[in-house]
């Protein structure tokens, strides 16, 4: 078992390596890329939520002076040909391609239909208005329950419901059904003294990263395609573009520029293949930028959902059974995060009897994309509100009931596997002991709420290379794009191994030809898995350095030790040399040292969070103000505590936005009517108090330093915590997200 021991570098707060470039405006993001002869691309998007494309005429656009090329789905390789080759996966390829440029149908307003490259962005925009597209408009399906009705209009004629490998006979908007069953739920509910069953509705919300999507592509005459872009994963871009363009990965180089936020939303590709098509057609580098409305309407948000939760408990607070029904909107193509939602919904609890059903349902909205702990926040809004209601009915403190039922090592999750070492109890206990929770909470219309949340975290592949410099520093080469300070948290792990300072590491995020395969910056995996790879690469360096020291001293390698940045010989000859001094002697002892580490670790270690929030409700207007917010989270081991706090604070605030105001507002035609930062209403700093981030450290046995991912779980509890606080304030249970002022007024019976 790992202990929380003293480290030299880990747990300190050095200045991040990319910091100066980012505070001086010198850091280059995707849209900052410049090239001689650069053309500017613009995408034409569907004005309809559901329509068949009957014709596209690009001739007027092509005739506009300054226009250098126009592309449509016809310029993409025919995905239909791939059906035979790829079996069931071929369906995905068609969906993938159709989401880049619609071929036969548009399935949401904002769906890309064509694109133009021109000498400046204004001309490209004007040219888009000259592309004549004829549509046969179809009735849109805009809500998950409506989409599941047997007579609902179908988005895809050939889509049939699959249930773990079994496919239904009739076409449907329901793409898949999943189920988890543990114990005997009927028996469990029979044992309960109190049973609460509630229905919940959540809206479509966007990640809301400040930097719009961007891509610049260029084809060399030898067919080498280079793409400069902001992305959460350069290798993932390479794979997706290769699939969509049917082009070998070895001919594609993806250069990750700095990235202005992602939260899961910059994994799927949208305009990158389009930039490539335009570059091929024009023979010039082409930069395609989205504007803010494009981002809202044309990229993946996280789904709206309908959730029913039923839980039962005995009078002493033991939860005996739980049941959940989750129907998630996948958007235009299958692939909502209902799976993880279903797996996370009761994860903070040890419940013997559980049944969970989940449905992935297509609707005429943008295809959903991951967003921070995808699926789990929707699910937790339901379950954590019901737990609160049970606690209230039984007269038990809401944190106490969580402790009574808390999941711990050895308990079986509802989806089957047994929990390894987890920190659920520790987060609840820390919240309970926090001065926030023990502070008085008595003012009229003020309320306090709590909620817990769980997210798996994930491992996947990472590669790191370390080049040792003669001055005792190292250059650390990695493939994980840095969205929130991971250059620092990865570098610090290598520094810890080698006994050098964080500042002695020069981390670089490089392109797909310059480092081994590395999966996306997502799934809360970067500090965990790429940090693990850095640890391994540093161990490799250490091993090689020991060989050099042995050579220098003419002793056996087994007699060389390394500790606290010093190599020393044992068993006889007394020799010592610092890491730095040995670095200066690499040439004479055998040449340069390059260390490498690659991992695909399975022990990501799930993370728990428990949040406490105080709100004030204006009973006349329905407005909710956040007065105080405390977020407790198990980080396993916080490598750079400042950036761990930052993840917790940022996730909590995105949750606050989701809870109170954020949603896609649609009209009857399926048009999003608030596709701007003005009307989408993300929190500004004036809407918030300081966010007290409390780090609990229950080391993860699956990582050499005990790291657990921290990025995602903080967005899981806020919605339920705030709903519970609103109930505490005014006695009204909110079951719909966002809990916007008009919904509160309605729930209070004021309008």
């Amino acid at each position, binding site marked *: 078992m790992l202990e929380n021991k003293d480290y030299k570098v880990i747990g300190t707060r050095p200045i991040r390596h990319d910091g100066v470039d980012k505070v001086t405006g010198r850091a280059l993001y995707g849209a900052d890329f410049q090239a001689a002869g650069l053309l500017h691309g613009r995408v034409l998007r569907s004005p309809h939520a559901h329509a068949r494309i009957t014709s596209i005429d690009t001739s007027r656009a092509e005739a506009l002076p300054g226009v250098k090329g126009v592309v449509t789905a016809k310029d993409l390789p025919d995905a239909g040909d791939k059906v035979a080759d790829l079996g069931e996966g071929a369906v995905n390829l068609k969906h993938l391609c159709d989401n880049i440029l619609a071929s036969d149908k548009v399935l949401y307003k904002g769906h890309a239909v064509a694109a133009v490259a021109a000498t400046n962005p204004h001309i490209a925009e004007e040219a888009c208005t000259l592309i004549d597209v004829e549509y046969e408009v179809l009735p849109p399906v805009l809500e998950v329950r409506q989409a599941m009705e047997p007579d609902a209009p179908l988005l895809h004629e050939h889509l049939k419901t699959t249930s773990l490998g079994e496919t239904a006979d009739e076409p449907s908007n329901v793409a898949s059904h999943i189920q988890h069953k543990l114990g005997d739920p009927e028996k469990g509910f029979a044992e309960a003294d109190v049973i609460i069953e509630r229905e919940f509705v959540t809206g479509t919300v966007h990640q809301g990263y400040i930097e719009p999507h961007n891509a610049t592509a260029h084809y060399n005459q030898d067919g080498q395609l280079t793409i400069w872009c902001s992305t959460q994963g350069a290798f993932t871009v390479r794979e997706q573009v290769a699939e969509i363009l049917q082009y070998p990965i070895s001919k594609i180089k993806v250069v990750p520029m700095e990235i202005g936020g992602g939260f899961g939303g910059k994994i799927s590709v949208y305009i990158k293949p389009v930039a490539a098509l335009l570059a091929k057609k024009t023979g010039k580098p082409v930069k395609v930028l989205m504007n803010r409305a494009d981002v809202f309407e044309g990229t993946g948000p996280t789904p709206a959902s309908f959730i029913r939760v039923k839980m039962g408990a005995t009078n002493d607070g033991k939860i005996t059974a739980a049941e959940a029904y989750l129907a998630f909107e996948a958007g235009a193509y299958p692939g909502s995060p209902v799976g993880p939602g279903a797996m996370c919904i009761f994860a903070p609890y040890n419940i013997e009897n559980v049944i969970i059903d989940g449905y992935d349902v297509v609707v005429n909205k943008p295809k959903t994309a*991951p967003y921070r702990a995808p699926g789990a926040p929707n699910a937790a809004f339901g379950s954590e509100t019901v737990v609160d209601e049970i606690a209230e009915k039984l007269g038990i403190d809401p944190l106490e009931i969580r402790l009574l039922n808390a999941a711990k090592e050895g308990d079986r999750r509802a*989806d089957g596997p047994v929990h390894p070492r987890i920190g659920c109890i520790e987060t609840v206990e820390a919240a309970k002991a926090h001065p926030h929770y023990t502070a008085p909470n008595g003012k009229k219309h003020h309320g306090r709420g709590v909620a817990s949340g769980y997210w798996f975290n994930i491992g996947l592949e990472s590669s790191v290379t370390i080049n040792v410099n003669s001055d005792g520093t190292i250059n650390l080469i990695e493939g994980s794009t840095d969205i929130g300070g991971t250059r620092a948290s990865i570098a610090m792990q290598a520094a810890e191994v080698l006994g050098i300072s964080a500042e002695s590491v020069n981390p670089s995020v490089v392109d797909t030809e310059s480092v081994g395969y590395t999966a996306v910056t997502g799934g809360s995996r970067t500090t965990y898995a790429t940090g693990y790879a850095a640890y391994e690469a540093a161990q490799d360096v250490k091993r090689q350095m020991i060989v050099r020291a042995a050579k220098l001293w003419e002793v056996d390698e087994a007699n060389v030790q390394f500790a606290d940045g010093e190599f020393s010989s044992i068993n006889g000859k007394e020799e010592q040399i610092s890491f730095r001094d040995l670095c200066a002697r690499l040439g004479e002892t055998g040449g340069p040292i390059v260390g490498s580490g690659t991992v695909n670790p399975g022990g990501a270690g799930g993370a728990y969070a428990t949040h406490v929030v105080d709100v004030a409700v204006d009973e006349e207007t329905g407005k909710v103000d956040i007065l105080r917010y405390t977020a407790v989270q198990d980080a396993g081991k916080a490598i750079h505590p400042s950036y761990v706090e930052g993840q917790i604070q940022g996730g909590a605030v995105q949750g606050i936005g989701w809870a109170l105001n954020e949603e896609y507002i649609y009209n009857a035609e399926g048009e999003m009517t608030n596709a701007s930062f003005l009307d989408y209403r993300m929190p500004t700093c004036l809407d918030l108090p300081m966010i007290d981030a409390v780090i609990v450290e229950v080391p993860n046995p*699956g990582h050499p330093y005990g790291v657990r991912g921290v990025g995602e779980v903080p967005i899981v509890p806020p919605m339920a915590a705030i709903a519970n606080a609103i109930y505490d304030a005014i006695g009204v249970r909110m079951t719909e997200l966002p809990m916007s002022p008009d919904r509160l007024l309605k729930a209070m019976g004021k309008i």
Partner: protein
Amino acid sequence: MPIVAIPSLLRNLTNGKESITVPGTTIREVIDNLETRYPGMKARLCEDDRIKPGLAVYVNGLLTRGSILESVDADAEIHFLPAIGGGIAAPK
């Protein structure tokens, strides 16, 4: 022998049995032996000698690389679950 937890949606193939003990030292062997006892099982779990896209394999509570080549202990507990979307792109 390894124990395989049968997902509820596959229990129609196992006459409702929730877990099955089968011999095998790799996931591939375990699945092949399951198939022998419960025909149709392999088609629900695999595609062309690979775990189906969208499925994840857990061994003793830990997420594996999702490979049928994964070795399993004599007392391993095996789960087949939906793959986590966790910020991760659609399965290949």
